[in-house]
């Protein structure tokens, strides 16, 4: 060697280099980690790391060894620069995971020895886990756990004597078996590891886009949402489900109109919840998919707030924390109610407010209605609905609106979908002097007969209006329903189908059935696994009479259960089939019997000698022993395979033998 090569770490000496097979498996593991993280890494970083990985794999296949120092260091610098350029910082969930995955792949460049591979695999396991912080859905979780297979296979091949000689299929099946065998213990641990009721350190504030409803409504904004078929929430009812036309889930009420869009007024937050009288009520359980927002859509009308949430004055519900995991709750909804029969003066002002100059023609129209119907507000609302019913059409691809959105929509394009109608209707009501507001949320949903629950997708997002009528309080008016009743009666899919022209393409019964079942599985995963929190854990021991399991109880159950499982596993580990056949088993039994009587067979003592010695020691049994001896010798040495009936005869003789120590 000429000169000293600088290196970042102490080089282990004398340790053999990795076999090609182990290295292949290591590369496979790293590739899997990269794949798992690809969903949230920038695409160029994923590609670049993939190229590095493949290049290194090729290089080593051709007999290359450690990448030199002058390649490694710039690559690390490049990775650091790339991550910081992309995210602006190195700290946080996205940049942290990007940097970790990058380092992991670069670690391959200097993985030559067993030690390197082990360190790599350990951190790959960590990286796999961190991928679940981004998405813990059923598919993602299964996919990530699949990554454990190559990881453990790598560790296994590091120990193999001849890794190269093993066929590829035999690398993975034993690992799969080990993982399958680990499932009971892991499930048990999962159930009983005490959950933290408060986090030890702050959970990261990720910059993940809010999905689902937003707290602003402008015509055209909701379109992304309406084409997204991702589940938003699942609801199961204690009694019969309400009819489709009553399935309104309120998320936001919006009082502030700026000429373009609607947003919740700030003043509404500072009041106590407005009073309401409830008629029939309906109880339901819902599980809400993470929205990375705080709002909780509730079935019209929410009567109280579920735990950890607050009921706002407009009876919408806001969670105390951002919803980053699936939120499950049960609630009580009133299907008939009188909501805020006495309107606060400030609220009335808010709900009559209109921006200056917007929609002059609409105001004129509203003023003409007001003149005709006077104080009969309900008649004005009916007139507006009738107008929508006659001249308007429902489409998800409306013509673009000009500067004055309300007038343009009402008198020019006359086509649109829920938010256009809700927005225009509310405007008209306000212009006619009736307090009104826009409500957004979900409407409809799909009844899953397999799981008996209502699946509400994001595409079920909807906007409607609430109008305050003297003596009746806030009353729900859905102008979309008068334009296109199917939207409300059958759901968003039906409404869109009429215009989309792809009716029935994906609506084959068996496919629908399959989708139903798949969604049931997802629901089960969300409720059973993701939603399993400290509270649910405390209720775990209820069937055993412990209403409120403390951490110590849980730990105790955990310890006992683990001990039982370990005992079962130990039994498996210690289980050893006895050598030999039935005859040997009987002979062993005889030996135990005789040993109790004081005649134990010596190591290396032949049967004949042993029987003779036993017969001398136990003169009372001499005849029986001689018979046994003769029988044994004949059976053992007379046949290749002793006949079973003779073996059982020998067994009977062994059982009958009464070996008793002779008192000398």
């Amino acid at each position, binding site marked *: 060697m000429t000169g000293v090569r600088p290196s970042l770490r102490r080089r282990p000496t004398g340790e053999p280099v990795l076999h090609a097979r182990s290295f292949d498996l290591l590369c496979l593991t790293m590739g899997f980690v990269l794949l798992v993280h690809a969903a949230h890494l920038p695409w160029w970083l994923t590609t670049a790391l993939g190229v590095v990985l493949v290049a290194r794999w090729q290089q080593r296949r051709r007999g290359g060894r450690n990448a030199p120092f002058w390649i490694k260091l710039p690559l690390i610098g490049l990775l650091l620069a790339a991550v910081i350029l992309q995210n602006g910082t190195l700290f946080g969930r996205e940049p942290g995971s990007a940097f970790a995955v990058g380092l992991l792949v670069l670690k391959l460049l200097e993985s030559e020895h067993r030690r390197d591979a082990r360190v790599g695999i350990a951190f790959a396991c960590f990286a796999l886990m961190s991928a679940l912080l981004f998405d813990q859905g059923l598919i993602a979780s299964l996919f990530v756990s699949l990554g454990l297979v190559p990881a453990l296979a790598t560790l296994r091949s590091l120990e193999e004597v001849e890794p190269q000689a093993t066929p590829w299929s035999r690398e993975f099946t034993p690992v799969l078996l080990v993982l399958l065998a680990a499932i009971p213990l892991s499930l048990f641990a999962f159930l009983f590891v005490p959950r*933290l009721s408060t986090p030890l350190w702050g959970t990261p504030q990720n910059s993940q886009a809010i999905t689902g409803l937003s707290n602003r409504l402008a015509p055209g904004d909701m379109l992304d949402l309406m084409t997204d078929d991702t589940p938003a929430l699942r609801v199961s009812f204690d009694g019969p489900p309400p009819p489709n036309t009553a399935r309104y889930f309120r998320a936001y009420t919006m009082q502030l109109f700026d000429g373009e869009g609607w947003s919740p007024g700030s003043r509404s937050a500072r009041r106590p919840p407005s009073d309401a009288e409830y008629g029939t009520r309906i109880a339901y359980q819902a599980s809400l998919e993470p929205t990375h927002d705080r709002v909780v859509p509730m079935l019209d009308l929410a009567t109280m707030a579920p735990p950890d949430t607050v009921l706002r004055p407009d009876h919408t519900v806001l969670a105390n924390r951002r919803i980053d995991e699936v939120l499950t709750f049960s609630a009580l909804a009133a299907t008939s109610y009188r909501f805020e029969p006495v309107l606060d003066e400030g609220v009335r002002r808010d709900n009559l407010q209109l921006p200056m100059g917007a929609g002059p023609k609409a105001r004129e129209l509203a003023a003409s209605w007001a003149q005709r119907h006077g104080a009969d507000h309900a008649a004005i609302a009916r007139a507006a609905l009738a107008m929508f019913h006659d001249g308007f059409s429902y489409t998800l691809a409306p013509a673009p609106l000009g500067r004055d959105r309300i007038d343009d929509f009402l008198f020019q394009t006359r086509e649109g979908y829920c938010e256009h109608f809700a927005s225009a209707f509310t405007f008209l009501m306000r212009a006619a002097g009736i307090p009104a507001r826009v409500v957004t949320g979900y409407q409809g949903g799909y009844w899953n007969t397999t799981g008996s629950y209502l699946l509400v997708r994001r595409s079920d997002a909807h906007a409607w209006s609430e109008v305050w009528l003297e003596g009746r309080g806030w009353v729900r008016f859905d102008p979309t329903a008068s334009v296109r009743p199917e939207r409300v009666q059958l759901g968003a899919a039906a409404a869109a189908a009429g215009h989309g022209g792809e009716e029935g393409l994906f609506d084959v019964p068996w496919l629908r059935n399959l989708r139903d079942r798949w969604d049931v599985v997802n629901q089960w995963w969300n409720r059973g*696994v993701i939603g399993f929190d400290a509270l649910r854990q405390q209720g775990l021991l209820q069937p055993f009479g412990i209403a409120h399991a403390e951490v110590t109880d849980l730990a105790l159950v955990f310890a006992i259960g683990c001990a039982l499982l370990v005992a079962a596993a130990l039994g498996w580990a210690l289980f050893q089939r006895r050598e030999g056949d039935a005859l040997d088993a009987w002979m062993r039994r005889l030996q135990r019997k005789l040993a109790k009587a004081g005649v134990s067979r010596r190591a290396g003592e032949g049967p004949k000698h042993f029987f003779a010695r036993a017969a001398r020691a136990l003169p009372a049994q001499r005849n029986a022993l001689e018979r046994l001896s003769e029988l044994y010798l004949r059976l053992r040495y007379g046949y290749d395979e002793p006949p079973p009936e003779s073996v059982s005869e020998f067994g009977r003789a062994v059982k009958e033998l009464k070996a008793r120590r002779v008192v000398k």
Partner: protein
Amino acid sequence: MPPRVQRLFAWAERRLPSLTRLRQREPLPIQLHRRRIYIVPTGFGVGFSVLLGVMLVGSLNYANNAALMLTCLLGAATAGSMLVAFRVLNGLTIGGLRAGTARAGEPIRVSLDIGASQRERMAVRLDIQGREHVFVVPAGAATTVEFDLPTEFRGWLALPRMRVHSRWPLGMFRVWSWLHPDRTVLVYPRPEALGPKPFEPRGDADRGRPRAGDELAALRDYRPGDPRRQIAWKLSARHHGLLVKDLEQPAPQEDWRLDWDGMHGLDDESRIARLARWIDEARETGRRWSLKLPDGYFDVAQGDEHYHRCMTALALRP
């Protein structure tokens, strides 16, 4: 090793003889069972469990149940690998020892049969005097491990303590068991490097005179009295006189009569070394020899069996 740790080891060896190298000698075959198989996590295993702890705290903190499940699965698989490791050694039988021959100072080749009646045992390692041998034991059969032991003195050489261990399957746990078989292998004496030839009795009257035989030794002029059939007629025809074929028996190699008491003024070890050299030489030149020792006599013979018998007797001289 710092002295503290050494003291700790010494204490452990006093207290837990079966756990350590102080295990008593025992007869072969040895079957490994649960009372003599020990498991500890390796350094990597400890590191990995720390990592598992970090993963556990992390997933609990973020209340991420999927991550928690993954951590539990990984932890359970790791714990399960401990049992798999145990099963590698459990029921392993060590028996069947064979040794080659070696003279003191040369390494002696020893082979050991290691078998298992059930299950294939992967990556079993056997540590003998600082060297590690790795092998796979197939199910229902035995593997032979061959290794060299350094020798220093003649006589019986006890097998050193051996450690059979394994890190299979994941390298996180090491199972081990000490073996201390009470078997010995024989080491022949070291022959001296240089020395005189054995004393050959010269008193024999026959000595030096060629005996008549069948092989042609030389041609010479005819002397009266030579038998006629020895005259080389064809050759003689081309010469002036008669030539006679002188036939004789090749002088036979003298049997060496090696005698312990024939060497004066030497101590026992030197005598053994010298006798060993002579026996080696006799065997190499194809000579026959006899060996007389104070407590035994091996009559004139040759061949491997004779050699081993003589060498064994020498090796075992007190």
